[in-house]
């Protein structure tokens, strides 16, 4: 028995090293004074972060990405609220197949989605723009939002809704006064997840980007130039901190939602 636990400790230790290896190296190289991204390290510098502040192309790409991510977060959450509410509250014809179809982008390779949207846009004679990327992002983020919101809606007690009807409220009022406040934490979590996924998505943006790059498309272009790498490490560090921050906030809201509906906390995201 002791041997087994010992094996597990070693295994988990190696696993965590493997899992966190890249994430730990990111800030290490971001603060490394050498312009070559490799060991041995040569000293501490914040130069690479100050380079970020003056890079105009980067700022444009970041603004594009933020715009896309905010739009994506709002629309995919809206679509997901409808789907999650419909599938958890009503039983309707073809529910399983409809939900399966809507959730499909979760398992389809992103390159298939990128390619198929590209074909449609070109065949229809539309221009590639930030909008085309946004559409693709809404498509792939919606399933993640549905997954989060389904559990929020599923935890709702149906009797609360019925009580509201019995007390003479309309359907509309019941939604805003009873249901919405209860699923609010789920909605916030869904917004943040969609925002984070969109901000980091590369393949679809790579296929659908016209002349305006998003942040990942910009990073991809820069990866070819060794001189740009330390700056990218600094950028990656900033992005990592932003993502973790957003996720911690999302998790906080998710926990609060679980507490509100009075169910025991059983796990994390996804």
């Amino acid at each position, binding site marked *: 028995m002791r041997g087994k636990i010992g094996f597990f400790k070693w295994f988990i230790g190696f696993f965590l090293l493997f899992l966190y290896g890249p994430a730990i190296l990111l800030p290490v190289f971001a603060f490394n004074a050498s312009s070559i991204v490799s060991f041995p390290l040569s000293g501490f510098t914040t130069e690479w972060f100050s380079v970020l502040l003056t890079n105009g192309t980067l700022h444009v790409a970041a603004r594009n990405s933020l715009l896309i991510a905010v739009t994506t977060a709002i629309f995919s959450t809206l679509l997901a609220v409808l789907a999650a509410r419909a599938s958890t509250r009503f039983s309707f014809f073809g529910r399983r197949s409809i939900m399966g179809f809507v959730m499909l982008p979760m*398992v389809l390779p992103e390159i298939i989605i990128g390619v198929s949207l590209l074909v449609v846009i070109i065949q229809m004679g539309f221009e590639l723009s930030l909008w085309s990327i946004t559409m693709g992002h809404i498509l792939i983020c919606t399933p993640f939002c549905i997954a989060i919101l389904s559990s929020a809606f599923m935890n709702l007690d149906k009797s609360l809704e019925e009580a509201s009807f019995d007390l003479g409220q309309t359907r509309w009022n019941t939604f805003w006064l009873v249901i919405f406040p209860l699923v609010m934490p789920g909605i916030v979590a869904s917004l943040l997840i969609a925002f984070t996924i969109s901000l980091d998505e590369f393949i679809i943006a790579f296929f659908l980007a016209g002349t305006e790059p998003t942040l990942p498309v910009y990073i991809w272009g820069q990866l070819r130039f060794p001189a740009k790498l330390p700056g990218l490490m600094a950028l990656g560090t900033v992005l990592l901190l932003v993502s973790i921050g957003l996720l911690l906030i999302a998790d906080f809201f998710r926990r609060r939602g679980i507490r509100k509906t009075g169910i025991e906390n059983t796990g994390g995201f996804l």
Partner: protein
Amino acid sequence: MVGFQKWRRSESAQGLFLISPTLGFALLLLAVPLIMVVALSFWTQDYLTLDRTFTTANYQTAWTEPMYQYLMARSLKISIFVTAVTVLVAYPVAYFISFHVVPKRKAMWIFLITIPFWTSYLMRIFLWKVILGYNGVINGTLTGFGIIDEPLSFILYNQNAVVITLAHAWIPFAILPIFVALERVDRSLIEAAEDLGDSGIRRFFRVTLPLSMPGVIAATIIVFIPTIGDYVTPRLVGGPNGLMISNMIELQFKKANNAPLGAALAISAMGIVTFFALVFLWMNRKYVRGPS
């Protein structure tokens, strides 16, 4: 009329009405584009003009030309390896969290495992190049300490590097479903097996593993299908012999200007993956419908 009025107020109608925007969006942006890709794969393109006469020439090229056969086989092989490595590593981790971590800490552990997944996707893959590469962290350190004279070549810009990097990217997605399945395993069944005299290993193979198979199957499918379409990893760490089918699809759509062939390759790849996934599900059909 009365019948319609009644139907309009029914559960079915309300549900369909509520889900219609989401469904409409998915039909418009997923079903229509996929159908168009299928159509395109039966057309031909000569430089910029598209010929809309039906032909299976693209599929003939995709399935008979050795280069495409080779790329497809390699992509499939890499996907299978990645899936096997990912699930084999994920299972013990999920088992550890489910069986050896105190219940209060489980949520924290799951969170801990998902954090690295939120590092920028491109940077994460690029950092594997830094770790595994010629002057990378592993080879640099080992040569620096004089343990090896030459860089280890088995992790250098090849298919092994692609497998390691992809396994790293997908491991959280494999751990989560296995963890959920293990959490559902009724602990009293394991105790019963113990009381009936089964040893630890027998208990695991006769009780715990079969009961957690739905999670293993879910993890396998979740990792296997998207992996074949990965584009960035082969480009960054694969070297010349590690390229995969997506790199060829992208080439056909962009530089080679032969979108129909690209479409045929994409559809073929999806078909092959779906076929393998279905065979896998069929092999495990007794576990697919979980205990619920």
